């Protein structure tokens, strides 16, 4: 060694290094008295060596934070422990910037502290970015965490702490699967989706139930540029429970409807079979009475013949009732097929009069037809006979012995049949209802029937693309008007 010992050479090298390093740097005696600052320090703080010597550095600190800095520094001096702290230092422009300050002791061979080497690294930009990030994260309504490529939790916000009922101290740096073991399950969407985002680098959106906390979460996970994934999620338990309740309600409603439909089908089926079963004995009855009436054997016996005629008529009435039973099922199931033919409406109404002759005579009702000229259209004869028959039958039934007027006219492309009685009438609140199935405006104890007559009328009129309307005043009678397109 030439003129300098080894320690002196080291010292010079060290001093040169510190002198030119980009951080603010200094050293202090073992008791904390600072006797050297590098040029960067003076350059940043705008101070002079005379200002700074010893404890002069306190003048560039924030007075509010100085006591805690002092306390920590004194502690290091007393114990020899390295010092590390973040605090702001005032620059020459008067503005503070944040620095990370580390101070390490240099020791001699015996372990005694020779001096302290201090370094202040400007972390202001980083700190501001972090502050911005954390204030952003904290102001989000979502819970947030960031997973590194090995699924370690590197960043969380307060909502994450709140929803997951963990603190950041417990979670940061630990594996997500370890912190939330229930998610480390290939059947869990958390497991499959986070792996997918991590491996395929595509975003994910999903909803998943987290059983340990009885919480439903809605999650958005995004791959970030540094190989991490950013996860945003929210507690949707309330919404989920509502949805579940709604789904259950809907399911119950669906079941009830299916049950009602099945019951309805069963009823229609029963009516169809019943009407079929009733037909065969009626056929026997009718054929028997008609055969009797045809034979010459009893031609002279007027009394017997009149009884047979009554039997035959009542058998016809039974057939009509059975037909309306079947109609109820047919019209209710919606399969209305018309058998169209050329029909003269006035003639059809006249033959309906004839069928109601006995009935009107017994009720003492005079049925009067006004039909200036024939009205011809393409209709289903049998169905129109039913329509007209039901209306005339009702007019006689509810007519209170007063005349029933029926008119058949043609207006443009429409045929119009009006049946008017002067009987009991129908209260306004029943006008709509009477056209519905099984509805009646009067008590069944006074007026019999199935309660389907007007429903059958309206269904067949609708099938012909016509309309049926009622105008009525209780006690003054009813007027039913049927309009049918001629086609």
């Amino acid at each position: 060694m030439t003129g300098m010992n080894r320690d002196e050479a080291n010292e010079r090298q060290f001093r040169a290094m510190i002198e030119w390093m980009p951080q603010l740097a200094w050293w202090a005696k073992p008791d904390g008295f600072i006797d050297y600052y590098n040029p960067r320090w003076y350059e940043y703080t705008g101070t002079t060596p005379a200002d700074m010597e010893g404890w002069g550095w306190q003048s560039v600190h924030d007075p509010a934070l100085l006591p805690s800095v002092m306390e920590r520094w004194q502690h290091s001096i007393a114990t020899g422990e390295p010092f590390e702290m973040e605090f702001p230092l005032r620059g020459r422009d008067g503005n503070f910037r944040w620095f990370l300050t580390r101070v390490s002791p240099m020791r001699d061979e015996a372990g005694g502290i020779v001096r302290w080497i201090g370094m202040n690294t400007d972390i202001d930009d980083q700190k501001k970015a972090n502050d911005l990030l954390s204030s952003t994260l904290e102001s989000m309504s979502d819970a947030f965490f960031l997973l590194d490529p090995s699924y370690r939790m590197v960043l969380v916000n307060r909502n994450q702490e709140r929803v997951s009922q963990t603190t950041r101290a417990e979670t940061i740096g630990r594996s997500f699967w370890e912190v939330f073991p229930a998610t480390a399950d290939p059947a869990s969407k958390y497991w499959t989706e986070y792996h997918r985002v991590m491996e395929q680098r595509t975003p994910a959106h999903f909803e998943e139930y987290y059983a340990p906390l009885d919480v439903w979460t809605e999650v958005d996970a995004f791959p970030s540029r540094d190989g991490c994934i950013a996860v945003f999620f929210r507690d949707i338990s309330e919404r989920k429970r509502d949805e579940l309740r709604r789904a259950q309600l809907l399911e119950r409603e669906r079941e009830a409807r299916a049950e009602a439909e099945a019951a309805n089908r069963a009823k229609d089926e029963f009516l169809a079979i019943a009407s079929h079963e009733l037909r065969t004995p009626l056929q026997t009855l009718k054929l028997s009475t008609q055969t009797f009436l045809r034979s010459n054997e009893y031609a002279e016996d007027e009394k017997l013949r009149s009884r047979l005629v009554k039997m035959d008529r009542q058998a016809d009435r039974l057939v009509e009732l059975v037909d309306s039973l079947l109609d109820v099922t047919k019209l209710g199931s919606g399969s209305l097929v018309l058998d169209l033919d050329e029909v003269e409406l006035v003639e059809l109404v006249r033959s309906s009069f004839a069928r109601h002759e006995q009935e009107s005579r017994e009720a003492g009702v005079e049925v009067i037809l006004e039909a200036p000229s024939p009205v011809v259209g393409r209709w289903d004869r049998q169905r129109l006979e039913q329509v007209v028959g039901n209306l005339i039958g009702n007019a006689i039934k509810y007519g209170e012995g007063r005349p029933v007027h029926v008119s058949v006219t043609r207006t443009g492309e429409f045929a119009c049949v009006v049946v008017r009685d002067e009987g009991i009438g129908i209260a306004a609140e029943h006008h709509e209802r009477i056209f519905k199935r099984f509805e009646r405006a009067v008590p069944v104890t006074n007026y019999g029937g199935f309660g389907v007559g007007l429903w059958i009328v309206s269904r067949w009129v609708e099938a012909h693309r016509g309309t049926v309307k009622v105008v009525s005043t209780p006690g003054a009678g009813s007027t039913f008007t049927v309009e049918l397109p001629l086609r």
Partner: protein
Amino acid sequence: MHGRLLLVEDNVDLRETVRDLLESEGYAVEVAGNGAVALEILRAGCTPCLILLDLMMPVMDGYRFCLERAEDSTLASIPVVIFSAMAKLDASLPAGVEKVLSKPVSVEAILGTVEQYCLA
């Protein structure tokens, strides 16, 4: 000249009433209570001018009878008129059926139909 016809009907009262009616009009009437008996009668050599066929019957119903008849060339040419209340319920009628008498029908309707096939 009045012909012979085959009446296939399971309701005994109705069967006898129709038979009385047709016989009083001068027709010869064979009767069967179901499709199987009807096939037996036909295969024993009876060749009626008309088969009046109910649809709903025990043992062999009218639909099944029509299928069997269609497969037997000697029977396929005999006209069949359905005499049933089913026709009102169901639009799909068996193949090879000439006409439908939907129960209940009048005496005139039965006689009119039978005349078409059995009055030579």
